[in-house]
């Protein structure tokens, strides 16, 4: 590390005008967060709804489905993922066994990011548990009353379940969006940003700038930019929540 010099806004100018890698990492991160976060949330919600309907052995299913989330943060899982989608990995091996064409998932810039998205979606367990707790909090009497009034299951889902679940959906969305933008370990271990920077997530690029090029000022500037992006997203989600989040106390 050198001695810091005051260079005003030079880092930002460089970032926005003459660093194509910065824009690449921005693009990758927005694509990743934009696809992976909704996938995880929708998945978590659907599985929670299904679990809520199951009458027997809920505990066992819940445990099994939560397991990927429990271990998901560890390096071991990222290492395993790299092998799973490797050229001779289990995924290609399954495809071959059922007669489908195999593919170099990690070697192809178009598919490498998808292996990371699947890894993110696979760890839907925590969100699922939060949704499940939310579902359990909806009083049974609401469903009974509405079925007396002639509402079918589909209608009940849209007029009772979803509105009463919106506070939980809001909370989950905000947490997951932040987590999505902050993803580092998967791209660092599974693909290391490659091939041709197609999986270069923002935090990975920031890490490279700071600890491989020791360009601390530039990396700090990147942190500020990301922080502002996250703040804007959080604010937008909160602002929009006035229109779609339903708090029970409002109706009194």
């Amino acid at each position, binding site marked *: 590390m050198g001695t810091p010099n005051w260079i005003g806004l030079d880092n930002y100018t460089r970032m926005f005008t003459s660093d194509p890698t910065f824009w690449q990492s921005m693009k990758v991160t927005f694509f990743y967060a934009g696809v992976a976060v909704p996938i995880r949330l929708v998945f978590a919600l659907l599985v929670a709804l299904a679990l809520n309907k199951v009458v027997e052995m809920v505990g066992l299913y819940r445990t099994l*489905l939560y397991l990927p989330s429990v271990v998901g943060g560890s390096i071991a899982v990222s*290492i395993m993922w790299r092998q799973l989608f490797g050229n001779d*990995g289990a995924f290609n091996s399954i495809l071959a*066994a059922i007669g489908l064409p195999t593919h170099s998932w990690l070697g192809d810039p178009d598919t490498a990011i998808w292996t990371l998205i699947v890894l993110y979606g696979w760890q839907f367990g925590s969100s699922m548990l939060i949704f499940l707790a939310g579902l359990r909090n909806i009083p049974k009497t609401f469903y009974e009353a509405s079925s007396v009034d002639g509402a079918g299951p589909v209608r009940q889902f849209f007029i009772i379940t979803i509105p009463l679940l919106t506070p939980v959906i809001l909370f989950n969305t905000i947490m997951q969006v932040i987590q999505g933008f902050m993803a580092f370990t998967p791209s660092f271990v599974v693909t290391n940003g490659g091939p041709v920077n197609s999986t270069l997530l923002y935090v990975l690029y920031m890490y490279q700038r700071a600890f491989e090029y020791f360009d601390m000022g530039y990396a700090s500037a990147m942190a500020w930019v990301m922080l502002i992006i996250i703040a804007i997203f959080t604010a937008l989600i909160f602002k929009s929540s006035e229109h779609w989040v339903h708090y029970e106390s409002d109706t009194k």
Partner: protein
Amino acid sequence: MKKKKITKKTIQHVLMGSFALIMIYPLVWMISSSLKKSENVFVNSHSLIPTEWHFTNYIDGWNGFAGITFGTFFWNSTIITVIATVGSIASSTLIAYGFARIKFAGKKIWFVSMMLTMMLPFEMVMIPQYIMFNQFGWIDTYLPLILPTFFGIPFFIFLIMQFIRTIPMELDEAAKIDGCNTFDIFFRIIVPLIIPAMMTSAIFSFYWRWDDFMGPLIYLSTPEKYPVSLALKLFSDPNSVTNWGAMFAMSTLSILPIFVIFFIFQRYIVDGISSTGMKA
């Protein structure tokens, strides 16, 4: 009617069961690969039953690299995890008590600041933190990984606070009349009642520290000091690995403590996530 119910149940179990199996397939695959002979790991790699059971992978893997065994790495991880967890829980409990029960000047501002740092991801502050710890001369020591935990973890403070708020104030007042001071109330009244919240926090702290990768990655440089997470990354470097079985064996072993804690304390974990939305 009864028959219909049974069919419905069966369909439920088949659907949920196969879905759950697909979801845990990667984990089972990892464990099964750790028992395959290295040359066979990537032959018909999707199969889950090794043609021959190769437990020696675990011994080979344990020998580690550069003359350092995984025993060292596991010990390092344990040290970091245990001290950091004790620090997190002790400090967070005290801080939560302060916020929940004691009146002091500027409480609101401090509380808002604390909540703001809860929303602030570590990745955003790691560079200034690194520069700071670098100036303290703490690089390549465990201090940057351990010491900050002794100043409270916002998530835990928040969780424990919510718990303290459910304890009736009358208990505090009664204890005060009996001659307890603020600390007596904390140790004799509050702490025994918030053990579940402390347990939940401790379990999450364990997970986060055990899995922590970014911290060791930027702060540690001597392989002898590496925790399991960082050692595993080095051990699995795609350019140098030849012993795939051993790599899978050590990967499996590294998540074993997480599994064990999970199965023993599942109830606390489920409660913790359901009530605060902490990520595991």
